[in-house]
């Protein structure tokens, strides 16, 4: 196996899961998410000789995936405001109560508009900081912070009273 191929396999092994999850929360469609991840990684394969630094590779993959998603989104207008929660059942979970909780939370995330869903996904899935999200999404840090507040407020309010105080939203700006 060539070293290029070896590096590709390592990259695929390390990043496929997170990329898939990110793609899933972008498009909310498991099949499309799969296509997006595949398209993105195969594109990386073609440019393997230029991709070295692993942190930069991740940023490049995220950029490529978002772009591909944006293209499909603009063309097909897939993003309908009211999604009929087709939450995929997760057979691995045992605890029924926990699963109910988790599915409720998933529905909350599903219902977020993309501008809130995406920064949240970048942070929760990739562990991105506000600064990294603002670079990836071309937004000011304060705009990213506001979106993250709003996203968390809407998702967490059901689960913990007063976790996200309103005064923070006002201070965070528009």
């Amino acid at each position, binding site marked *: 196996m060539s070293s290029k*191929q070896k590096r*590709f*396999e390592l990259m*695929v*092994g390390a990043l*496929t*899961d997170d990329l*898939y*999850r990110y793609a899933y929360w972008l498009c909310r469609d*498991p099949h499309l998410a*799969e296509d997006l*991840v*595949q398209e993105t*990684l*195969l594109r990386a394969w*073609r440019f393997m000789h*230029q*991709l*070295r*630094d692993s942190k*930069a*590779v991740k*940023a*490049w993959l995220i*950029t490529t995936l978002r*772009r591909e998603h*944006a*293209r499909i989104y*603009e*063309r097909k207008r897939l993003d309908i405001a009211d999604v009929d929660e087709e939450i*995929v059942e*997760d*057979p*691995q979970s045992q605890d029924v109560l926990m699963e109910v*909780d*988790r599915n409720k*939370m*998933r529905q909350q*995330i599903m219902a977020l508009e993309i501008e809130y869903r995406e920064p*949240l996904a970048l*942070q*929760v*899935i990739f*562990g991105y*900081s506000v600064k990294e999200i603002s*670079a990836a999404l*071309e937004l000011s840090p304060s705009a990213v*912070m506001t979106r*993250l*507040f709003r996203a*968390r407020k809407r998702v*967490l309010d059901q*689960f*913990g009273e007063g*976790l*996200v*105080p309103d*005064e*923070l939203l006002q*201070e965070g700006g528009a």
Partner: protein
Amino acid sequence: MNCLDVRRICLTEPTNRSPRLLMHIYSCKCCQQYRRRILEAEEKLKTAMDVTVPEGLDRKIAFEGSFEKPSAHSWPRWQAMAATVMVSVALGVILHAVGSKPNVVPELARHMMEDPLHMLPTQTDAAQRLAMVMRDIGGQWQGEYPENLTHARLCPVRGRASAHLVVQGERGPVTVFLIPGTDARNENGLKQAQLVAVSDLHGGSIALFGYEGENLAVIEAQFQQHVSWKQSLAARQEAIQLARYR
């Protein structure tokens, strides 16, 4: 740092562990409790977002990657051979040229080998792709989109996010690269079966590859007329990222 600041950080970067934050939390019971609740909630959020990945997706992609050799894909043999000829001819250019600016032609020729856009079926949404690619490279297309455009893709060239385009010329497909920055050496000439031209484009560079007999000046004029640059944050960001790969 006051209690409100702490909450703001907890909600926008729950895993933040800056010394100032931790110092406040050590000395403030209220914030200690708050942070614990936030981290618990965050744990649930993480579990909720960890959707199940289709079984074997990574193996499937690695497997497909192992077969994908862009130069020996599904296009006819003569086209692949034409690409090889084009590339070897282009590579010859660099050996003779001398100048202060580096020659971009060999890299572009190699890129065309690995990403032979001009051999792929025409993209039906090429104009739309062009709009997005232009935005992503920090440029702008002003006026109507070219009718002869068949392909548009964002590609890395010399570590910069650049436009890899194909337009239909008189003699066949003409590949056009739009590269931010003007540090590519101007080239002009006919080399056996292939014509190459690299020149400045309002603060960027344009490189055109066409078959013998093609009037590249006509196609270049089309781009000179419509392209302008306004370096965007994303383009700069990507430039930095890509530069680090090299």
